[in-house]
Each structure stands twice: as C-alpha cells, then as structure tokens.
C-alpha cells in the first residue's frame, strides 16, 4: 500500500544514488586525482619545453589533456558499470521490480551525470590556476555537457551491443567523428580536391548528412578559451543548446532500444 504513494521520481533518485555511490566504491575519486596530478605535471613539462608563451602552452596542454581524460574516464566507467550490472544480473533484478524501464534509464543517467559533474568541478578547480574564472566556468559547463553526451552515448551503445569492446569502439568512433567532422567538411570542399569525382562528391554528401545527426563537438570545451580568453556567451548558448538536444536524442534512442530488450 505504501508504494502507491511513492513519487514517480523516487525510483529515479534511488537508482541515481546507487549509481553515484558506485563511483566512490570503485575508487574513481583517487583515479581522477592521479590523472589530474599527471596532467599538471605534463603541462609543467610542456611549459619548460617552450621558449615563449609558456603559460599559454601550459593552459592548452592541460585543457586538452583534461578534456580527453574526462571523456575516457566517464566512458569507461559507464561501460564497465553497466557490463558488471548485466553480468551480475543486477539489471534483471531491478527490472523485476514494478518500476518502468524509463525510470531505470533516467536514474542511471542521473547517477552518471552526477559523477560527470564531480569530475568537471574537480578539473575546473585545478584550471583556475591556469585561466580566468569566467573562461574556466565556460570550459567547465562545456565539458559537463560533453561528458553527458558521452555518458548517454555509452549507455546507448551498451544497450545495443551488450559487449564492452564493441560498445567502446562505437563510442570512440562517434566521438572522434564528431570532433573532426567540421574539419573534414572544410577539407572536402577545398580547392585542392578534384571536382566532379563521384567518390569525393559522395563523401562530401555523406559528411554533410552526418553533420546533421552528430553533435558539433569541435565547438565544445575549447582550450583556446583558456589560452586566449575567447569564449563568449554565444559559445555558452551553443554548448548548452547542442548538449541538451543531443542528450535528449540519445536518451530517446537508448530508451527505444532498452524497451525492446529481452532480458
């Protein structure tokens, strides 16, 4: 009788809490700290190699490093946690309870999002030593949305492939493509490329089509913001808009797959 009066959000909150606690249990915090310290050392080393603009090089190196490190940490954490849950039959157990699959999915997403938020905050605190607070804030918001996209993409890929290697490869390919697609489009239309060659024209069309369905991650979390303080409100609007839309799209795709899944 008591269950009937539970808020529909209650299962989501509970699953999110359990997911976030998993981060603490699996020693994610020490790992993030070690990676962070390594980044600081790498940036200092890069700074000593430079003849001029040592501070700019340090900011660029640590910004790029933390971005890719954050993406890899969250991607592997999400995939590993979900694979373990599949293998331990934890997912079967949760879904045997009278809660909708969407609650499970959104609970998981919220839990992983809180971990992404924690990683972002930790990274931003260190970056304050390298760049202005406004630019670090913009960089941080952008990184958070980027990690959220990677988290949702990882969940979708794991629901689809059920295996870590295949899911990781798919996430990696989509992520990489999203980062380089704009450059590829620009190169594809350059004057050095032969015109009216079917293969090139076809590739240009494919890339233009992909640009419609992939997030423009090349405009996210730019180290340039940290180095030259070039981040603007327009960049903030873009990352928030693109982030919200793409996480929604990936969530819908993941839910579609999850609802069709036979356990």
């Amino acid at each position: 009788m008591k269950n009937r009066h539970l808020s529909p959000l209650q299962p989501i909150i509970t699953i999110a809490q359990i997911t976030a606690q998993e981060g603490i249990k699996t020693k994610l915090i020490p790992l993030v700290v070690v990676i962070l310290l390594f980044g600081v050392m790498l940036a200092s080393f890069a700074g000593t190699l430079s003849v001029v603009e040592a501070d700019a090089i340090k900011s660029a190196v640590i910004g790029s490093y933390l971005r890719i490190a954050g993406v890899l940490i969250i991607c592997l954490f999400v995939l590993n946690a979900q694979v373990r849950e599949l293998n331990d039959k934890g997912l079967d157990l949760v879904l045997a309870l009278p809660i909708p699959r969407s609650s499970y999915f959104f609970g998981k997403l919220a839990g992983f999002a809180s971990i992404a938020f924690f990683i972002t905050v930790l990274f931003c605190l260190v970056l304050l030593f390298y760049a202005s607070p406004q630019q670090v804030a913009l960089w941080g918001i952008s990184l958070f949305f980027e990690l959220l996209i990677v988290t949702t993409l990882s969940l979708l890929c794991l629901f689809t492939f059920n295996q870590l290697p295949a899911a990781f490869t798919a996430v990696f390919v989509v992520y990489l493509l999203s980062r380089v697609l704009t450059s590829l489009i620009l190169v594809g239309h350059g004057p050095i490329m032969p015109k009216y060659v079917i293969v090139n024209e076809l590739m240009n069309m494919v890339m233009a089509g992909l640009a419609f369905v992939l997030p423009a991650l090349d405009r996210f979390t730019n180290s340039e913001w940290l180095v030259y303080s070039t981040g603007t409100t327009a960049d903030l609007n873009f990352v928030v808009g693109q982030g919200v839309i793409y996480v929604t799209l990936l969530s819908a795709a993941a839910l579609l797959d999850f609802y069709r899944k036979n356990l």
Partner: protein
Amino acid sequence: MEIFKSLKGRDRPLSDVPLWVYVFMVIALSCQMLFHAAQPRPVALAADLPHAPKTDFLHIASLGEPVTLSKVLMLWLQAFDYQSGISIRFMDLDPVGLREWLGKILALDPESQYPLVAASQMYADIPRKDTQLIMSEFVWKEFLKDPNKRWRAMGHIAILAKHSLNDLPLALKYAKSMSDNITSRNVPGWAKQMQFILLEDMGELEEARIYIGGLLASGEVTSPQEIHLLEERLLELEKKADK
C-alpha cells in the same frame, strides 16, 4: 559478425515500445537537425593560426607516430587556411607563422612533398609579396636539404620569382640551385635546365606549361589531387593571360 549474431532475435517487437518514446525520438531528432541547420556554415579563419610548438614537443605529441601527426597537421592547416571562395582572407595570414608550421610538419615527415607543394602552389599564390618571398625562401632552403627528392616545388617558385616578384636574379638563383645540387639521374634533364627556360623571353603561362607539362609527362606526379592542382594552376594562368 558475432556482434550481429548476438543482436539477432533478441529484441521485442517495436509495438512494445511506449508511444511517448517514439514522440520523444522524433522531436529530439527534429530539434537536432533544425539546430544544425540554424548554425552558420563553418568558415576558415586566418586569424586562428596559432604559433607552432617546438619540434621536440610535436615529436612527444605524436606518440611515436611522427608521420601520421605530420599528415594530420597538414590537413588541419589546410582545413582552415585555404578554402573555396575565401582565399582572399588569407591576405591576412601571417607568413612567418605559416612557414614555421610547414617547417615543423616537414621535419616530422621529411619524405613528404605536401608542405612544399602547399608552400609553392597554394600559399605562394596569395597576392602578398612578403608571403610569396617567405614561401619561396622556405621551399629553397628545404630543397637544399634533399635536392634529389625535393626539386619538384623549385620550378614553381623560380617561375613565381620571375613573374610575380619580378626578380629575375632570384629566379635564376633558384634555377642554378637546381642544376648545381640535383645529382640523381632519375630527375628529368629539363628540371636541371630551368635557367634556360627562365632566360627565354616567355610569359608566365608558357613557362608554367613547359614546367607543369614536363612534371606531368615525367610521371613524377601521380596523386590525382596534385594533378588537379597543377591543372587548376594552368587554367588560372590562362585566365590571367586572357585578361
């Protein structure tokens, strides 16, 4: 294939998915496509060219794959500095920075012809004397490091020096460099006799025709992209001569 076998037959029918998920999906996909369509088209910005890092740093960053990094950097450089319809903006491009990047990229992959082709045919076309001079000197200095492999770009800068920079002594210096330094028998004879071509009272188009025609006939250029670039160059010179 195991992946796809594992997927086969595991799914419930599409009718098991709640309607709101489909609605959610359609709305999200539409928003994504509209959002993308609403964004301005990407453009290359000359002002974005950063300073080139030290070669040591690039070697570390290449993670033991300097050739790959060189290729990727060349594409990156090309992606934002020589785009259709906006090459006029590259009047603002810093030629010293550009030379630094091309030098570093070539240092990562000394066998590559790409930076030299780009310097002699793409960047040297920018109608700015200082850029043309810096690019020409870059090509010449790099040529001297390995004349038997890096001679192809030299003819272009020699013709450029004579006609765009109106500096015949400089053009002859480049041509003499070719005859003095190229020792390989595999290099066509006419490439070593550029001085005679330059001393003839010919226009830029005729000289380019001889040089590019010779390059194409010799089979030295095999890449369709580079052949296209050479043909485009001839077409541009023909248009210029018609005016």
